[in-house]
Structures are given as C-alpha cells and as structure tokens.
C-alpha cells in the first residue's frame, strides 16, 4: 500500500519556493517559519520536506533550543541554480 506521506511528483513551484527561501537564509531555518514562507499547509509542507530530505536537497539541524531547523545542502543549492538558470534562459531567448 502506498505511503500517504510519500510524494512522487512534486510541484516545481513549491520546491523552488522552499529552496529559494533557504538559499536566502544565512543560518538554518525553523520549520514553522519555512512552512509559512512556502505558502502551503503543514501536511503538504511535511510531505515536501520528507521528499527533499530523501533527495538530499535539504538537511535537518538540531538547534540548542531543541527546535529542528532546516538548511539547504550543496545539492539543493546546485538544483536551485539549475532551475533559475533554465527559467532565465527562457526569458533571455526572446526575439523582439
């Protein structure tokens, strides 16, 4: 039976939103803040976070106050870099 928390086909924009938000932060980000920035409800956010952890795009860090924080990995940074490069190529390849 398929796991309801597992996700096979992630929404490109939600993934990009989470990666971009993490890329902008200098330090690991508290989960709830990241969820607000991702503009999705907590259940959906948890699915995306699981998926991104499995793919190695983000990692969890324990902070001194025992709250789990999320940080972007090098792989996540590279992936986001590719996404923005591709969308930028679309914008620049215009012929007016």
């Amino acid at each position, binding site marked *: 039976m398929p796991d309801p928390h597992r996700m096979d086909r992630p929404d*490109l924009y939600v993934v990009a*939103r989470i990666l971009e938000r993490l*890329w902008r932060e200098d330090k690991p980000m508290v989960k709830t803040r990241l969820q607000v920035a991702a503009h999705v409800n907590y259940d959906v956010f948890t699915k995306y976070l699981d998926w991104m952890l499995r793919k190695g*795009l983000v990692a969890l860090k324990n902070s001194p106050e025992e709250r789990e924080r999320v940080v972007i990995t*090098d792989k996540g940074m590279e992936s986001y870099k590719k996404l*923005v490069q591709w969308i930028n190529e679309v914008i*620049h390849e215009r012929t*007016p």
Partner: protein
Amino acid sequence: MRHDNARNAALILSIAWLAMVMWLVYGLYSMYKPSDGPHIFQAIKMYSALLGGVVILVLSLVLDYGLATVDTDPKTTLAILAHRLRVLAYRVKEDRKGIKVQITSSTAIRITASTSGGRTIVRYKPEQTASGWAALIILALSFYGLMIASAIGIAAIRKAKNFAQRLVLPQILGARPMSGESAAESIRSTLIDGLSEGYRLASEAYEAQRSNYQDGILAVITVAIFVWLLSFISFVTLIKGQSLWDEWQVLVIASVIVTTIFCIPPFLYLRQKVRAKAYEFKSWSTRLQTRLMQETSLAPPKDADQSVFEVLNDVSKEIPKWMKAMRKAGMFADPWTWLVIFSLAYAAFELLLWGIVWSPPNPGMQIPLFLGGGAMAIGSYLIYTRWRVNQQEEELAVTASWETRLRKAKVRMQNHLEEL
C-alpha cells in the same frame, strides 16, 4: 585618454554647429534683403547651412569612441558589464552587435567589444531609444528643426561620454570573472539578470502601448475634426435657403452630435482596452523594478512575497503579450519603415493636391502629377501592407516557438526534480 576622442568630437561638432546656425541666420536675413544679391545665392546659403546640419547629425550618430583595452575575451567582457549594469538597475539589451544601455528616456549608449592584437577593445557610441529616434526624425524632417536635431545629436555624444567614463569604465576595469562565483552568488546573478531583462521588456512594452494609445487618441481627434466639418458642410448644403440657416447654432450642435456618435465608441475602446493594457504593463514594470531593487540591495525576503523563481516564471508567460504590444506600436517600434510610409503618403497627398488645385488649366502638367501622386500612394500602401504581413507572420512564429520553449523548459525542470 581614449574618451578624449568623444570630447574632441563633441567640441568640433559643436563649433561646426554654431557656424552652421550663424550661416543659416545669415541666409535667412539675406532672403529678406533684396540688395544682397540674387535669390539663388541666398537660397544656396540657407540650404548649405541645413546640409551642414545633416552632416553634423549623421556624424554625431555614426561615430564611435574607444573606452578601454582589457584581457578578457569580448563576449565575457560584455556579459560581465551587462550584469553589473543590471545590478545598478539600468535597462540593458544584449544583441549580436553588443549591448545597448538606456541612459535617459531618449538617450542610450551602445557598447561593443572586439579583438585586436590579442586584446579586447571596448568601444561605445551614443544611440537613441525608440522615443528618442521618433523625436529626432520628426525634428530632422521639420526643416529648421534639423538644427535642433543635430544639437541633440551632439548632446547625446556628451551624455554617452559622461556615462561611459563615470559608470561603464569602472565596471569594466573592476570586473571580476563570473565563472569564479560560488553557487549562491551565481543564483543571485542569474535572478538579477532575469528580473532586469523582465523589467526592461515590461517597461518597453508599457512605452509602446502608451505610444499606441496616444497615436489612437490623435487619430480619433483628427477623424472627429473631419467628421464635424463634413457633417456641418452636409447640413449647410441640405438646408440651404431655408430659415434654419439663420440659426447656425443648431447646425453646429447637430454636427457635434454626429461627431460624438462616430467618435465616442473608438475613444471608449482606446481608454478601456488600450490604456488598460498600458496600465497592466506599467504595473508589471513597477513590480519587477521593486523585486530587482530588493534583490540588488540584498533586502531580507518577506514571507508574503512570491519567490523570484515564480515571478520569473510568470514573466516568461507574459513576454509574448509584451512583444505583441511592441510590434503593434508601428512608428515606435520601426521608425525607419514608418518614415518611408509617411514620406510617400505625404508626397502623394502633395502631388494630388497640386494636380487638383493648381493645375486644372494645364492637363499636360495635371496628368503627370496625378500619376506621380497615385504611384506614391500605392507605394506607401504596399510598404504598409508588407510591413503588416511581416509583423503578423513574425508574431505567429514567435508565439508558437515561445510556447514550445516554455513547455520544454518546464518538462526539463520537472524531469530534473524527478530524476534527483
């Protein structure tokens, strides 16, 4: 120093311009002083001054000037420069010839780079924006306005020189290769490039749409004047000899009513459709400028904000609309073709007018005038229809290829995520 070339050129052209203005004033003065020799010599004085103005204008537009010699290859030099100017919020357009940077609403600068002796030479030349070209062409065609056009040309050299010296040169000399950037820096550079390009396109689309709206209003006003005159003359002809003629106010009001019925619908269409679209483009331009400023100033993100990736994705969907607006703004987008169309139409109007008004007693003169006027009118019409067909074909091709490109990019991104 290299930019002294531009300063010297501006100085020499300014002196030449001053001499030509004085020569023109002297020519005009001679026209009103019969004792100053035959008319032909007076006319030669005046026209030679105007010809001098044409030469000054052309020289101010075609000359380019050296700025710097660097060791990076031309393509990289221009790519780094374009990026750094975008970070400074300038509107930069990259094309095969180099980069074009807008300095003011009417003035721009073109920067090129070429290889010589194993090094890269960066050059620049003053250019005009689309609205700058339109103003320059109108002035150049308005006889005495030509001297003002050539003065604008000289002023453009000075503006370009100041911009190149103060802003472009430090960016070239202090350039750091983009290949040495970290992934995080590279992401920011790419986001800035995308936002800046989107901002430039949205701004140009807004300017084109605004020009469309203003042209439309001008056309409605012209048609309104004709309709009013035509209806007034028709009413006068219809009721000639009747007592109503004494009450001419009634005829004026009736003509105004007819004009209103004819002209209000196109006027409302222009306000509700064309102007509304201009506002939409303006709002995009403002939105992108704000995001660009946030990105370049490293301002902290707000949780309510869309991600820049999503903004760029939205931009990529809007670009075909912006391109369409730019194409539709005929004179704005393609001033040279429209100059030919207007010139031919005007010549046709003049020749036909001469044929009708001034030469009825002389059929030998009238026939060539009609034939010439007809040929000019047909030429103008053919160039217009060809331009229109080309525009439509190009629009269809670009829209189709754009949709394909966007779809392919999305599939590529989605596959990338799935294959991680």
